[in-house]
């Protein structure tokens, strides 16, 4: 009898679980009014990796210094999560990268050079979203292997992986499974198909650790990663420009894109370059400094505080 009574309870619990998500709202939308956007404060979001968190602090700091109230909401997640948050008004601004942002809105874009990529981005941006001038500073996705792996398989470019990838494992953030600048693009552009994809983090300690411990043979890191300077890793060249120009550019909601705001963030973008960004990032990642402190130092140095 006891056994039989458990079955309906199982069915009921399952039904309850399904009903729980009954109405059509989704979590981000229902939380949309939690943001303080309508009070005039600009909420600068950031993706879930240290460099983006740092950039958000820099832009927010510059805005505050210019008399525009701004706060940060760090570590939101991947592009697939924060663009909808920008569109529904939960956040008003986020540091972005020209090449990948453009691909998010249109997968059929071709350009690889900074200015052309930026022009394409302007074309595909939906109404309600804007970008300001792009910065010279750039941070690309990279496929990275250890120097031993590079030597063993004689790898210098991503294309060299094609014949051997079948026995190798790739590690990267979960969104790489479905993104064009990830597993699908590697296959389409280079004919590289790895034996397995291991879902780790966005260029963070997990990917780096898995690569160094040999749990994956190749990993997705970012070109600004301080670990790449330590000598034990090799960044594979990208001759087909799968990862096109990725200049840093603030993406913002048109509602808040006043002249004051755009001119302030333009000054920040102009003051940044790839080398400087790498140094700032090393302080956050290697020295574990607070991104807000590093951002404040940068702004003071650039005369933007």
């Amino acid at each position, binding site marked *: 009898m*006891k*056994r039989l009574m*458990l*079955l309906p*309870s*199982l069915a009921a*619990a*399952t039904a309850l*679980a*399904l*009903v729980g*998500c*009954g*109405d*059509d*709202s*989704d*979590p*981000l939308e229902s939380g949309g009014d939690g943001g303080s956007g309508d009070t005039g404060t600009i909420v600068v979001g950031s993706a879930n990796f240290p460099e983006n968190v740092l950039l958000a602090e820099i832009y927010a700091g510059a805005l505050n210094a210019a008399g525009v109230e701004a706060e940060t909401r760090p570590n939101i*997640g*991947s592009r*697939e*999560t924060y663009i*909808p948050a920008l569109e529904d008004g939960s956040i008003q601004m986020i540091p972005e990268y020209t090449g990948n942002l453009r691909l998010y809105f249109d997968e059929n874009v071709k350009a690889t050079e900074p200015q052309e990529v930026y022009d394409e981005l302007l074309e595909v941006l939906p109404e309600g979203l804007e970008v300001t001038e792009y910065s010279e500073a750039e941070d690309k996705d990279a496929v990275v292997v250890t120097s031993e792996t590079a030597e063993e398989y004689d790898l210098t470019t991503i294309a060299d992986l094609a014949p051997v990838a079948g026995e190798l494992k790739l*590690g990267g*953030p*979960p*969104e790489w*499974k*479905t993104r064009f600048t990830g597993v699908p693009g590697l296959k389409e552009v280079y004919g590289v198909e790895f034996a*397995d994809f*291991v*879902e*780790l983090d966005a260029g963070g*300690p*997990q990917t780096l*650790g*898995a690569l*160094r*411990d*040999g*749990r994956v043979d190749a990993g997705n890191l970012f070109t600004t990663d301080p670990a790449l300077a330590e000598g034990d890793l090799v960044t594979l060249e990208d001759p087909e420009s799968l990862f096109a120009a990725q200049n840093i550019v603030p993406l913002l909601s048109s509602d808040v894109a006043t002249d004051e705001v755009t001119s302030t963030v333009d000054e920040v973008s102009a003051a940044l370059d790839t080398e400087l960004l790498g140094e700032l990032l090393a302080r956050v990642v290697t020295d574990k400094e607070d991104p807000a402190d590093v951002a404040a130092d940068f702004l003071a140095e650039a005369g933007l505080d």
Partner: protein
Amino acid sequence: MTRDVLDWLLDGAHWQGGEGIPLRVWQHVAYSLIAVGIAAVLAVPAGLWVGHTGRGRFLAVNLVGILRAVPSLGLLFASLMILGPKIPGELGVHVPVQVVLVVLAMPPVLAGAYAGVEAVDPAARDAARGMGMQGRDVLLRVELPCALPLVFSGLRSAVLQVVATATLAATVGLGGLGRYLIDGLAVRDYAQMAGGAVLVAALALLLDLLAATLQRLVVSPGLTGKTGRRTAAGETAASSDPRDVGVLTEGSTR
């Protein structure tokens, strides 16, 4: 949204291949049962010993409390950073995950075992001694069988908690049903996330159902409070060893 979740669950493409639901369920069950198995091997004998001798009770009670307070996600990342580089290959991730799940499973199993033995009717224990049983026999032939309902309740509680928490394995790149939660979150696919959550809940209930069935088969009918049916109980008693627990508890209630 309900419709999206159902569509996701019923889509045939989600039921096959290296990302398919059967493989994910299998991985999830494997992570969970290995952890509960290790916890049972460690905690059941320890709990029985504590309950039987009364020694180390203070330690056991506090250990249960302390282990329950350990935050699983924090422990996972800490043990991954400490153990990961020391253990080569895939094991470098599997071991930290098992550490977390075993720590989670230990408290209910340990508590169930010592509380079960402590709760054994003293009359049954006396009767066993009176029949000439020594400590070890008393524990294994009387106290353990009588403690089984509580031992099982500890194990079942551990299974439920571990099945729910084994989703954390996905945060460090392993499989299991947590994959759907983490991957769904990364690409904002809420149908996939909700579908994964439903699968976790359904799996937890299914495993509890199986454990309940096993418990019915293993626990002596003399302990289930169904001895009202004298004929059935009488038959069992007649056909078994006279020192069987069923007889002892029968005797003690008389």
